[in-house]
């Protein structure tokens, strides 16, 4: 028996996706980017509508210049963990910049956004504590909960009342209760009702961690996310985020006013046992953050573009989530239909993400799009037109 025998069902699922002659949707190669909105795929210039590069800052001139300059002065890597030789002055500087941006006292920077959730959740919740997770939480949150050894309880997606009910069942139980929500959910682009969750947190004495990976740089007057937009930042004890979406680089962070955060550096395994961010990434991230702060118009343009894409896809009869946000997902019924739809979009020059159950809510396959501030109206209209063409070919939509 092969060590891979247990993956035979997975192999059959993959074969079912590709056996009509279609591509493997998990092995798409962007040969190279032409701009933030266009990449070369299969030798053709293709509109990118699935990169999470919300402000287009992966191609920021200021960030590129900062990275190049820093590579010359600092080299290409740190070769070490944050708790050994991997903390340079730049790491501290970045942490101070991120803390100042969020108006928080403390910041910890991780090497990826995944590790930020893994490292914070696993370290904050001990084996005698309770983690209360939104049912549609990202894999990094579920994985962090497994690493934590805490008791893990799911509540219904975006449902503060359901959370309240589950916290009530824990009345009188010893141990800290840590609620984990996301600002914008990555599959459907729906926004958390943060003020209502904050109210439950206040009433029950629980702690609240918000993963604002998809909402920082996107929501709030200053781009600090949904908690800022809802006016409840003081109720959020820990904000986790990533550099790999609106800031266009890679890395993750947690900010908090809790002085205990410094102790987490000494017990969070995903922080301690991995190499720290390379200096050029830090320089690029700080330059991108300055651009995010300096150019609020990027956020406004992003939301205008989100409205345009959301309205356009609905107008051609496709089903999307109810809210226009930078993630707009088209919901289909059958996996085979979604695979064919996704292949035809790419044939015609639009790249989106194909998301399949069980990674999606409600067992529906999704054509997940993400929009950017740097898309122009013509690109969005062209993408909608291509969606309409494929929908007509397939008898989907109206």
């Amino acid at each position, binding site marked *: 028996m092969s060590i891979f025998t247990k993956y035979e069902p997975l192999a059959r699922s993959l074969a079912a996706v590709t056996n009509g002659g279609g591509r493997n949707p998990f092995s798409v190669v962007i040969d190279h980017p032409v701009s933030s909105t266009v990449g070369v795929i299969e030798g053709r210039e293709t509109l990118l509508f699935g990169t999470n590069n919300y402000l287009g800052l992966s191609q920021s001139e200021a960030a590129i210049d900062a990275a190049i300059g820093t590579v010359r002065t600092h080299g290409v890597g740190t070769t070490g963990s944050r708790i050994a030789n991997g903390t340079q002055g730049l790491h501290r500087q970045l942490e101070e910049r991120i803390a100042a941006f969020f108006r928080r006292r403390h910041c910890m920077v991780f090497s990826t956004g995944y590790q930020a959730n893994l490292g914070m959740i696993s370290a904050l919740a001990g084996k005698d504590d*309770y983690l209360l997770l939104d049912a549609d939480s990202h894999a990094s949150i579920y994985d962090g909960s497994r690493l934590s050894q805490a008791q893990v309880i799911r509540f219904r997606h975006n449902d503060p009342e359901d959370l309240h009910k589950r916290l009530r*069942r824990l009345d009188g139980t010893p141990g800290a209760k840590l609620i984990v929500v996301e600002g914008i959910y990555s599959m459907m682009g729906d926004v958390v009702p943060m003020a209502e969750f904050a109210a439950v947190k206040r009433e029950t004495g629980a702690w609240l961690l918000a993963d604002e990976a998809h909402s920082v740089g996107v929501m709030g007057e200053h781009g600090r996310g949904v908690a800022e937009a809802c006016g409840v930042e003081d109720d959020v004890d820990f904000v986790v985020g990533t550099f790999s979406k609106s800031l266009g680089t890679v890395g993750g962070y947690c900010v908090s006013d809790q002085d205990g955060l410094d102790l987490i550096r000494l017990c969070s395994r995903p922080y301690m046992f991995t190499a720290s961010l390379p200096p050029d990434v830090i320089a690029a991230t700080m330059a991108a953050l300055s651009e995010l702060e300096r150019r609020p118009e990027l956020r406004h343009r992003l939301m205008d573009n989100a409205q345009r894409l959301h309205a356009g896809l609905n107008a051609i009869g496709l089903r999307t989530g109810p809210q226009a946000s930078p993630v707009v997902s088209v919901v289909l019924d059958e996996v085979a239909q979604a695979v064919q739809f996704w292949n035809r979009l790419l044939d015609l020059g639009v790249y989106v993400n194909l998301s399949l159950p069980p990674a999606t809510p409600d067992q529906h396959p999704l054509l997940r799009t993400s929009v950017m501030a740097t898309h122009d109206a013509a690109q969005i209209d062209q993408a909608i037109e291509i969606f309409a063409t494929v929908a007509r070919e397939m008898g989907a939509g109206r």
Partner: protein
Amino acid sequence: MSETVADVSALIIQTLLANPKVPRDISGSSKIVEDLAFDSLAVMNFVMEIEDSLDVSVPLDRLADIRTIDDLANCIVSLKQGD
């Protein structure tokens, strides 16, 4: 607070049979993943329904040890008894 394992097992089966995709011949010894063809997410969502019916929360780590409908019923009864 006085549900027996048999009561809870019957409630679970009744809840499962409301889903037309579930085989009609399930019993307490049916395996949730293998016999019902539930994936990990479907199991968690189904357990959430049962939790609400019985006003109990089943921590996710407990699910790892549950194979059959009776296993789940046993787990819920012990949680309700304050284990």
